[in-house]
């Protein structure tokens, strides 16, 4: 099949940030994907890689898209080597389908995305993660091999299928968080973990953010080993509420012991959550920043500055809703703000001020107007990142200017 034969006209269902691409390709092999990219590079076509389509509105506003390359056709490959605790999956495989397959053999890829339809490729390209990163890190930490389709028409691989391997440059890590701006991910290989035998979560509620911050310090200083350790702050016109969520997963006896030990340590008002209640609480926590209206920004902080971060949130409301769902020990979270764009732009500017306790403030979700007004990424790419972009995408066709590179 020639490259032209692989293309079909774009439809509104293929939209990238509300813009319908002129053409769509749905390659079913890495070679076909690379051939499409090579043709696009020659023609200087603005090209966006599209996985599950769950984050197409992220990044700088898009003016025009010539070509969307959908990875849906790269969604059949799924090799689970359960004895080796590894799996190789096509970029188009939804994360949820991967984990359903792995669970049949008692294993998982411990990444909790807020987006049910997210593809493995999209998860990697955005380094998507949730509360489980407390124990397992982000997808980059679980990735052991990758196959990439490049804009020069070649398909290359890096890493392999073994969990320990230092041969060659780790191109898998390089494309993690690149938002499809360097190459298209064809498939990826991950190390897996056994599913825990038992799990329970302690929720602690506070009326005072200083008490929460003190409890967070106490828990971190101890030797309990949570699977997840999250904070929620939800400020509404009725008043703010703060909670900690501490999840333990291990053998049943060890879980019970740690829940009791954590309860003894925490001064907040605690409730133990198990089974369906626990699952619902975490699903809600993961979805919290995204459910409902509003602008979503990502930010990071040094864990010791948690109290200052909560104080900063207090200044951001301007009468609207302010919600934070984040990782206590990692020092990262998503903030949702409701209200008109102008005060939100001012709030983002305050978060980016030199004296602010948070850094790496990224405007993730917002109207096109707001994303045009505010610097979405908040920083220029580093010198090496720019050089790598030039090396791997010399025609500069990938990602249609959405950033971050």
């Amino acid at each position, binding site marked *: 099949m020639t490259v032209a034969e692989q293309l079909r006209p774009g439809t509104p269902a293929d939209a990238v940030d509300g813009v319908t691409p002129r053409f769509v390709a749905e390659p079913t092999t890495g070679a076909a994907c690379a051939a499409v990219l090579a043709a696009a590079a020659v023609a200087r076509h603005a090209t966006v890689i599209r996985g599950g389509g769950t984050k197409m509105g992220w990044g700088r506003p898009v003016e025009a898209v010539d070509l969307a390359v959908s990875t849906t056709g790269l969604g059949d490959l799924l090799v689970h080597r359960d004895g080796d605790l590894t799996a190789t999956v096509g970029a188009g495989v939804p994360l949820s389908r991967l984990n359903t397959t792995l669970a049949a053999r008692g294993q998982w890829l411990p990444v909790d995305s807020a987006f049910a339809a997210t593809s493995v490729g999209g998860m990697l390209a955005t380094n998507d993660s949730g509360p489980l990163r407390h124990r397992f890190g982000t997808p980059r930490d679980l990735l052991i091999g990758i196959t990439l389709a490049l804009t020069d028409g070649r398909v290359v691989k890096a890493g*392999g299928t073994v969990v*320990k391997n*230092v041969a060659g440059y780790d191109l898998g*890590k390089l494309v993690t968080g690149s938002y499809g701006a*360097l190459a298209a991910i064809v498939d990826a290989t991950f190390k897996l*973990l056994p599913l825990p035998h038992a799990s329970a979560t302690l929720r602690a509620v506070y009326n005072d953010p200083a008490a929460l911050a003190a409890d967070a310090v106490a828990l971190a200083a101890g030797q309990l080993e949570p699977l997840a350790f999250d904070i929620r702050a939800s400020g509404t016109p009725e008043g703010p509420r703060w909670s900690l969520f501490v999840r333990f997963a291990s053998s049943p006896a*060890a879980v019970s012991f740690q829940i009791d030990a954590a309860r003894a340590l925490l001064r907040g008002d605690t409730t133990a959550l198990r089974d369906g209640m626990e699952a619902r609480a975490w699903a809600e926590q993961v979805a919290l920043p995204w459910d409902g209206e509003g602008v979503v920004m990502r930010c*990071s902080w040094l864990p010791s500055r948690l109290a200052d971060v909560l104080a900063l949130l207090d200044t951001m409301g301007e009468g609207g809703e302010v919600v934070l769902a984040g990782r206590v020990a990692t020092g990262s979270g998503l903030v949702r703000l409701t209200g008109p764009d102008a005060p939100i732009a001012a709030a983002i500017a305050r978060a980016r001020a030199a004296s602010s306790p948070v850094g790496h403030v990224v405007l993730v979700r917002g109207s096109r107007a707001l994303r045009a007004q505010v610097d979405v990424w908040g920083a220029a790419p580093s010198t090496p*990142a720019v050089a790598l972009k030039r090396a791997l995408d010399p025609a500069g066709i990938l990602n249609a200017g959405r950033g971050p590179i």
Partner: protein
Amino acid sequence: MDERIVRELRALCGASAVLDEPVQLLTYECDALPHLRQTPAVVVLPASAEQVQAVVRVCAREGLPFVARGHGTGLSGGALPVPGGVVISLARLNRVLEIDIPNRLVTVEPGVTNLEITRQVAPAGYYYAPDPSSQQVCSIGGNVAENSGGAHCLKYGFTVHHVLEVEAVLPDGSLARIGSRLADEPGPDVLGLLVGSEGTLAVVTKVVVRILRRPETVQTLLAAYDSISAAGTAVSEIIAAGIVPAAVEMMDALAIKAAEAAVHPNFPPADTVLIVELDGPAPEVRELFAMVESICRRTGASTVEVAADEAHRLRIWKGRKAAFAAMGRVSPNYYVQDGVVPRTKLPEVLGRIRALSERSGLGIGNVFHAGDGNLHPLICYDESIPGQADLAEQVAGEILTYCVEAGGSITGEHGVGADKKGYMPRMFSDDDLDVFQQVRDAFDPQRLCNPGKVLPTPRLCGEVPGPYREHPVERAGLAERF
């Protein structure tokens, strides 16, 4: 080396920081892979990032190749000098700059040893997780270059999982911050690329690492088996039970014999010993450890020795960590190999290695990280017997072939360096290698930063991979290696 350049380097870094007397240069001829040797033109020991920048700028201007060197403990010739080139030793950049316990961060210069980080934070109850066997002497800068692992990386990961940010001098002499101590810096993971790049992309001058809270409990057992396959079954069952041990190590009879001769860990006489360590909160460790113990007995362990106290545990680890050096007690020469196979292929590949040992007549000791399939075959030979060194080299290459055929890798933690670059085409296609070169050129368009490492160079006709042997053309003085 042009005397003008040496004078300039002395002016930049101080007279005592520039070595160019042949006897001074001897120390820098090789790293811990002594059969690859090359005398550098000059060695510079800068004492600050600014001095490293100044030296790299001179190299860039003059087109001089340069090689960064930590404490020289690398096992793949990654710090092998380049003829006519500069060695930049980071030994004087050895300060611990900041210890931030509340945020679990330690900032160090690259010449600080791996173990020094743990020493500094141990009083507060913390440690630095990656623990290569050389951790008492190896530098953190070298760990970053090699993405060093260690016995406990099964549970805790490698250097790349514990380094958050580095400051590095790029090959044009500019200083860059790569990565961030704050999470979620937007953009591609350049730090993930840099860690493990074997000193070919930049010279690291500062490293921010994450430290971990020391686990409440550590329990270790040593189980003796009469076959590797029985020990392998135990490992499979432990993994299948959903247990992630902190470490799972195996040693075979020859390695046990060597360790006994060297450090007397008092291992039981056995065909294979299996070491399993669990750590974490006490009730969890207690429960899972009982499961591991019962798996070991069920799979036919003749003895199961549980470390009764910390001294006992350290004695077991001393036996394991000394195994490489101990080979010197049982063989005049030995060659340490570092290959990886998928864990389930361990019995098959070890069987092939045993058959190879019998066929070649060379003893091969096996020490390996059984949890992640990382093999360290120790090939014994006697240089004084004509032909044995060459045979050992062939055997080492054959073992790597087995690893690649089993779906594994030519190196799990020692790096490609100068030693294994000839094997890279066995794992990677020409296109893969070409793109690696493109990525490298993005950092180092002049190709001056640790050239001749990692990627295969067009080889002299007749050159074979493996330990360095002088090529007849070189012997005749007609060619030299670059």
